[in-house]
């Protein structure tokens, strides 16, 4: 059958290039491995050279192919060719151009292609720089590439489909009758589009960085392979170090960018929640950090070579394991943001990845274990390498602890058990890692001052005494003037927080002092100290901002709403974090008086900003000390689903953070709700659906705090007492005035009870006519949560400083000339800034 209006060419082009990349990456890998097996001597030099050229040609063919595939997907999405399932699932007509890139990596297939493109970029750099290691390293990279492309190749092998192609057609994937009509495309007006939660500039920046981090971990692994395969165990560490630094830097930044995204725009109420998806990315990073430190130890002393191998191989294994956790749907019940698309196919493909890459590496490592040189002499207790090794080991064990708990769904799957997350997931991790932070803080503080092999005690004491003194004073000042108020887990945990805080402040001070006194401000040599300072600053920020995070929307503190429905168990355990704001009614929230002013529509469909006026009034002087408007926003979806983004006021010392948790649903019959008329004498009682009211009196021209009538006016005011269902009473004063022969009604609104009262005049038998109108939602309201995060900026500042330290180290290790360094840093920052601009356009 011929279908109308389909554009099949891009899909055919795309699929062809996927297949080409698939074949070319295999050819390139084989050719590289073959070339690396040829000994370097005169007779065979020519043969080796020709194999290398062949492998390179295949490499660039697959690079260009993947680039074409990427552009084709972009083309299909940007032209809204909904005959392709990928465009139908991830693009939509209203989607702004800036999110079209994000469409590509929203889906499994596109994100694999992103990952493989980074392999290409890194591979190109390696071709030009790796020299004699080019063949083995690129052999590994291209083998990994082959498996990655297999995930999106989408070809049939007998009856089983291998990988899922991004170019499949909607009508082939979904079997409903409509697709048997030749003009089916005219019925598909729009795609599903990018998930609204993901419509954020971080979705444009965060995945590429994170995938660069993941992709880059293959390079140290390639170096390790090159040495294991040639049995030349000693000289791979030095050239691999800058690559490991790069991996650690990019992956670390990528992970914390995810945290910043969660903090800025997702309503998780923070930047880290120990969600399995977050943990899955954190664990490879921690193991790589362990590997990095072991490599640094080896580079300076010859120790810890075996551990370097082990950590690099394990680090990559956990990259694959985290891919497995996040992409196979196994986390389904435990994570809020993993892929949900389950399937045996993905399990098998990732299994192949492990079998092809990680298992051979483990095998080579074990086989050569005895031959890998190691120093038999015990390390001196005062040596830097001993403590670095201990630090690496602790980091590694913490990573294992995290992944052991995160893997709970995997155990359930394997053993058929039904264990679930502990009651307080975050605390389960925090209570262990707060002690890790304490130890790591101390280690990163004083091990900088240690020298490799041996350190004189006098030197150490002399250099350390000032930083220790400063730290003790700072911690005491903090404890006195800004105590951590995290008491809900008992005094033991509070002490642990203080210990960790002491250690991380100590690390900041000690590393700062090290830069100043030992390195005399020589920043180029201080990459490690700067990175450690940044890390410690980040931990300090985390401890303070989480320890003293305050829920200012706590109902019980505002005293405005006393929940009378406590449920059968009495006091609820959870803090009551939601507060309802009625439109135009100022409500006290923490130190602020907050008024919900109005809504404003955003450029995007269904998106609304809610403008909240925050005022902080000094209780003694009555002056307004802070005055600002926050505009958290929410997407209201079909079926009244809600997806909200926070509004945050940034101060140097703290953030005021708020997001919408419920909005009022506008009921169409609101406006048609009519006044129900009651004809009443004084002291008569009438009923409404939730209670009754009494007409106490009708006053003529009253002059009280509510109305200021003079005897010249003609005004009547009814005095009504409303008895609510919860046996509280409220007063209402509807009024009626006559001026210029016109009757004006001044209705009274009881917002809390959703009641309108009207004094409508006198009936023929001299009774008062009282109108009452009730409605489910008479007024607009929003329910929100609001937090104060103190010193959150320390976290982000620490992250930037840490990344800066890494970059300085990379430049130093690669001996990049100064102008090259400067140029690359400027380029990277420029690129990020440009992306930021696009994103915010």
């Amino acid at each position, binding site marked *: 059958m011929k279908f109308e209006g389909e554009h099949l060419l891009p899909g055919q082009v795309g699929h062809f290039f996927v297949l080409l990349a698939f074949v070319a990456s295999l050819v390139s890998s084989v050719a590289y491995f073959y070339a690396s097996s040829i000994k370097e001597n005169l007779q065979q030099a020519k043969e080796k050279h020709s194999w290398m050229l062949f492998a390179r040609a295949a490499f660039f063919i697959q690079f260009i192919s993947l680039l074409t595939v990427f552009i084709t997907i972009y083309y299909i999405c940007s032209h809204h060719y909904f005959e392709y399932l990928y465009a139908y699932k991830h693009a939509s007509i209203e989607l702004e151009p800036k999110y079209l890139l994000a469409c590509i990596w929203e889906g499994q297939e596109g994100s694999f292609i992103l990952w493989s493109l980074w392999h290409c970029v890194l591979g190109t750099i390696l071709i030009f720089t790796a020299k004699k290691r080019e063949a083995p390293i690129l052999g590994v990279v291209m083998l990994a590439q082959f498996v990655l492309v297999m995930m999106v190749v989408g070809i049939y092998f007998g009856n089983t489909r291998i990988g899922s192609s991004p170019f499949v057609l909607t009508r082939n994937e979904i079997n409903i009758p409509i697709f048997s009509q030749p003009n089916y495309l005219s*019925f598909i007006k729009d795609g*599903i589009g990018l998930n609204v939660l993901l419509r954020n500039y971080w979705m444009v920046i965060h995945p590429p960085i994170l995938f660069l981090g993941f992709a880059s971990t293959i390079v140290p692994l390639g170096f390790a392979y090159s040495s294991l395969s040639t049995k030349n165990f000693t000289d791979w560490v030095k050239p691999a170090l800058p690559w490991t630094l790069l991996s650690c830097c990019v992956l670390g930044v990528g992970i914390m960018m995810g945290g910043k995204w969660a903090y800025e725009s997702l309503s998780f109420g923070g930047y880290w929640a120990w969600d399995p998806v977050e943990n899955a990315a954190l664990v490879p990073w921690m193991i790589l950090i362990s590997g990095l430190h072991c490599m640094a130890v080896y580079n300076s002393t010859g120790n810890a070579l075996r551990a370097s191998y082990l950590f690099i191989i394990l680090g990559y294994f956990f990259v694959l394991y985290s891919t497995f956790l996040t992409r196979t749907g196994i986390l389904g019940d435990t994570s809020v943001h993993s892929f949900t698309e389950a399937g045996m196919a993905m399990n098998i493909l990732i299994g192949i990845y492990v079998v092809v890459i990680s298992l051979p590496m483990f095998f080579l490592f074990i086989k050569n274990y005895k031959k890998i040189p190691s120093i*038999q002499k015990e390390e001196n207790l005062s040596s830097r390498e001993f403590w670095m090794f201990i630090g690496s080991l602790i980091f590694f064990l913490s990573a294992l602890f995290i992944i052991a708990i995160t893997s709970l769904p995997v155990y359930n799957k394997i053993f058929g058990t039904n264990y679930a997350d502990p*009651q307080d997931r975050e605390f389960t991790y925090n209570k262990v890692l707060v002690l890790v932070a304490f130890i790591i803080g101390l280690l990163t503080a004083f091990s900088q001052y240690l020298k490799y092999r041996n350190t004189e005690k006098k030197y150490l004491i002399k250099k350390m005494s000032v930083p220790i003194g400063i730290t003790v004073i700072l911690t005491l000042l903090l404890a006195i003037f800004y105590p951590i108020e995290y008491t809900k887990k008992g005094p033991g945990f509070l002490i642990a927080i203080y210990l960790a805080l002491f250690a991380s402040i100590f690390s900041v001070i000690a590393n700062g002092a090290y830069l100043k006194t030992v390195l005399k401000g020589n920043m180029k040599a201080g990459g490690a100290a700067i990175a450690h300072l940044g890390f410690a600053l980040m931990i300090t920020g985390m401890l303070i901002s989480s320890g003293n995070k305050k829920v200012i929307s706590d109902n019980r503190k505002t005293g405005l709403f006393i929940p009378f429905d406590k*449920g059968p*168990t009495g006091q*609820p355990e959870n803090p009551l*974090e*939601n507060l309802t704001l009625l439109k135009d009614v100022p409500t006290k929230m923490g130190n602020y008086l907050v008024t919900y002013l109005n809504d404003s529509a955003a450029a995007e469909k269904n998106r609304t900003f809610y403008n909240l006026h925050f005022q902080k009034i000094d209780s003694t002087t009555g002056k307004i000390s802070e005055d600002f408007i926050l505009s958290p926003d929410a997407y209201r979806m079909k079926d009244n689903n809600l997806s909200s983004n926070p509004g945050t006021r940034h101060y140097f010392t703290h953030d005021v953070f708020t997001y919408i948790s419920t909005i009022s649903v506008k009921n169409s019959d609101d406006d048609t709700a009519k006044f129900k008329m009651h004809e009443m004498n004084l002291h008569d009682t009438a009923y409404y659906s939730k209670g009754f009211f009494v007409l106490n009196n009708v006053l003529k021209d009253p002059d009280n705090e509510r109305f200021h009538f003079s005897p010249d006016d003609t005004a009547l005011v009814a005095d009504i007492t409303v008895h609510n269902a919860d046996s509280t009473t409220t007063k209402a004063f509807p009024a009626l005035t006559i001026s210029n022969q016109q009757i004006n009604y001044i209705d009274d609104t009881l917002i809390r009870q959703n009641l309108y009262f009207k004094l409508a005049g006198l009936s023929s038998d001299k009774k008062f006519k009282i109108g009452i109108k009730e409605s489910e939602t008479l007024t607009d309201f929003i329910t929100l949560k609001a937090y104060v995060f103190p010193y959150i900026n320390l976290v982000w500042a620490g992250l930037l400083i840490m990344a800066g330290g890494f970059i300085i180290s990379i430049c130093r290790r690669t001996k990049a000339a100064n102008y090259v360094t400067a140029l690359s840093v400027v380029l990277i920052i420029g690129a990020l800034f440009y992306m930021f601009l696009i994103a915010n356009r």
Partner: protein
Amino acid sequence: MKTSSIIILVAIAAAIGVLLMYSVNFSTYDTISSAKEKQGKYVHLIARLDKSKPIQYDAIKDPNYLSFYATDSLGGSTQVIYHNTKPAELEQSDRIVLKGKMEGNVFECNDILLKCPSKYKDDKKQLEKTVSQY
């Protein structure tokens, strides 16, 4: 480093690991009836919303009180009380994971995870919906 010291280190690490794992108090997935037997114990329920019974939520009266009924595949049924706002997709969810504990006949819920007919799983449904709009 000597082999002996490595072994000692590994042994210490393993011991710490075992201790840590014991210190983690894992909860379990339960059915409503087995949760009722484990009064006051923190469990996870996999259930669905009972649409025949009322959902009680009034953000003006108390934004932190939600009450609804849940049933599970084994026919168990319980009232659920959640001291938080009503998740917007509650009515549309096809499966809910409830974390909390039974107190008498009421499930005191700390956290709700909704499993909505995801667009990944239900392209067919979504497409049918989209197409049928025209």
